[in-house]
């Protein structure tokens, strides 16, 4: 009985919790509710994954109305993986939050912050499991609106203009997506993804389909901060509260990427993306250019959160490269990197939050002597950074391996070269940080050991350990990513 409702629970649980928080409003209790939501969602997402492995795809008709007439959830290994990522990052983010939030947000507002956080999680879950293109829009807006709110909780006044800019960009993105959906609807009369997938092949030669495709892609590209639509991201990440940045870095763009992949490969006819329109070349080019260029921009940043925000744009570029390869191996690499990047980036931003608690600053200058002053915090940043470069024994290496082998599979040796070149650019900014933290000594200075609080370190190190574990034994993450790619590209395992 319960297993039938697994998919619905993923949205229902936070949806019940959010208004409850708004009624209670006391920081401590709202945090507890948020934590309970996290635990329940994690268990639930694992259960969904197991259920799918055992019985295959979950289809759940909301309200009891069958698919094209009602809205349905449709969960296979691809969204199950994304759900898992989102739920775990959310849970760790919530565990991490109290101390970090206390230092940045006034007591009165904290209850609202947790409410918005739960709502954001609701939205992201809703996007991920939905099988209806319009429903995706609605939950996209739930997550976007709550993200704007979360960002505006930042300490620095610049968070306001960042949130506003994101709001404008995000609304344009959503409207573009809506235009695309409108065109699709006008041609097919349906909004259900599976139904669309059945009806679109007959219409493949119509310009309207191509334009709808373009609008949907551009809308989602803005949401996932794909170059050159990335302008909103650096400031949004830089000025949001640290705990929020950690959460957003691991989840916000991921759901959009997932919808992107789902739509272009599954909803649009087979070979529409790579064969008919050949737009995969564009995505490929955009991805690799952004991976290299934005990493280069990151070198010149002196504010850690902003630096790693630029790096996130670069990593989205790598994901886009995998998508642009339009092969099972490529999409598997994208999914794997989604998973791995969530682990490493969240850990980095969490550690930066720890740095902030100790030093009161997140500039690179604050890192001076950090290697000795707070070895655990700094080690987390270091390992995350090594993972971004793609050093062996970290998840980043596995991602690179998959991505490079996917591009070599199609004999794109130049692409493989560029991907690896990107790692070197990454190495430059990571090393800039490492040198400041470990190798800039001032012999006259007495360094007092002063570590970030345990409640920050524990979630951070859970992710660091996961990073190393999945860097050594990638069988789980690799196989589930491959399985996800297989389902999306329509190859039954």
């Amino acid at each position, binding site marked *: 009985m319960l297993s039938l409702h697994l998919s619905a629970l993923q949205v*229902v649980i936070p949806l019940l919790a959010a*208004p409850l928080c*708004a*009624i209670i409003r006391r920081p401590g209790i709202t945090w507890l509710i948020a934590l309970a939501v996290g635990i329940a969602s994690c268990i639930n997402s694992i259960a969904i994954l197991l259920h799918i492995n055992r019985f295959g795809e979950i289809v759940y*008709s909301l*309200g009891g109305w069958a698919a094209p007439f009602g809205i349905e959830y449709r969960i296979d290994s691809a969204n199950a993986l994304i759900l898992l990522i989102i739920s775990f990052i959310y849970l760790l983010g919530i565990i991490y939050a109290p101390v970090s939030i206390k230092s940045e947000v006034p007591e009165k507002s904290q209850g609202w912050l947790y409410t918005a956080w739960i709502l954001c999680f609701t939205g992201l879950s809703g996007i991920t499991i939905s099988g209806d293109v319009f429903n995706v829009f609605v939950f996209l807006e739930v997550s976007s609106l709550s993200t704007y709110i979360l960002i505006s909780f930042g300490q620095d006044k610049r968070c306001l203009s960042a949130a506003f800019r994101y709001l404008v960009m995000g609304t344009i993105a959503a409207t573009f997506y809506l235009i695309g959906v409108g065109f699709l609807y006008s041609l097919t009369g349906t909004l259900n993804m599976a139904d669309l997938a059945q009806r679109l092949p007959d219409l493949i030669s119509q310009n309207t389909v191509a334009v709808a495709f373009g609008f949907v892609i551009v809308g989602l590209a803005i949401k996932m901060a794909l170059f050159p639509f990335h302008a909103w991201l650096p400031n949004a990440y830089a000025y949001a509260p640290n705990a929020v940045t950690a959460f957003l870095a691991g989840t916000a763009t991921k759901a959009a990427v997932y919808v992107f992949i789902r739509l272009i490969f599954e909803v649009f006819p087979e070979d529409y993306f790579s064969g008919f329109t050949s737009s995969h070349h564009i995505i490929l080019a955009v991805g690799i250019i952004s991976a290299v260029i934005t990493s280069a921009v990151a070198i010149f940043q002196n504010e850690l959160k902003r630096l790693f925000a630029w790096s996130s744009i670069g990593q989205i570029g790598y994901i886009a490269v995998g998508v642009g390869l339009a092969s099972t191996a490529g999409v598997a690499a994208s999914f794997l990197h989604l998973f791995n990047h969530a682990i490493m980036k969240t850990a980095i931003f969490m550690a930066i939050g720890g740095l902030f608690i100790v030093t009161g600053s997140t500039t690179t200058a604050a890192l001076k002597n950090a290697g000795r002053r707070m070895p655990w915090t700094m080690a987390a940043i270091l390992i995350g950074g090594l993972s971004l470069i793609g050093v062996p024994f970290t998840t980043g290496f596995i991602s690179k391996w998959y991505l490079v082998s996917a591009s070599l599979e199609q004999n794109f040796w130049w692409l493989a070269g560029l991907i690896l070149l990107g790692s070197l650019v990454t190495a430059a900014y990571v090393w800039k940080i490492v040198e400041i933290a470990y190798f800039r000594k001032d012999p006259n200075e007495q360094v007092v050991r002063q570590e970030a609080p345990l409640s920050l370190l524990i979630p951070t190190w859970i992710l660091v350990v996961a990073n190393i574990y999945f860097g050594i034994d990638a069988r789980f993450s690799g196989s589930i990513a491959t399985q996800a790619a297989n389902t999306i590209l329509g190859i039954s395992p």
Partner: protein
Amino acid sequence: MKQHLILHVIAKIMIPFIMVFALYVQFHGDYGPGGGFQAGVIFGAGFILYGIVFGKEATMKIVPPPLVYTTAALGVLLYTGVGVAGMFLGGEFLNYSVLSADPVAGQHLGILLIEFGVGMTVASVMVILFLSFADYRQPDSQDTD
């Protein structure tokens, strides 16, 4: 605007009608245009008119912000709760047919409840929006409008 007598009198006459109209829209949505959302907006507009004419302090006395926050949340809870009830009664989430022995009656009941939830949340949020904007003071502002 506290000194405008005409406004006071007319507002006092109009607001009850606005409220009644809101209720009409709320419950007549099944048969004509309208529904929870429109009713909520109109209901909220009634309070907003009150607020504009009689000032925000007076409005806050009638609808204290904490109460409005709670009703806004309760609306969402009601909606979700109806959905969950469907789950417990053996249907899917948001399946109203199982709420009653007769599916059509169940649908009726479900729609009535969720429309009420929508109306509650929307009306409350409209009041929240108005009060929040009205209550806000710029750090450098002098006027007490």
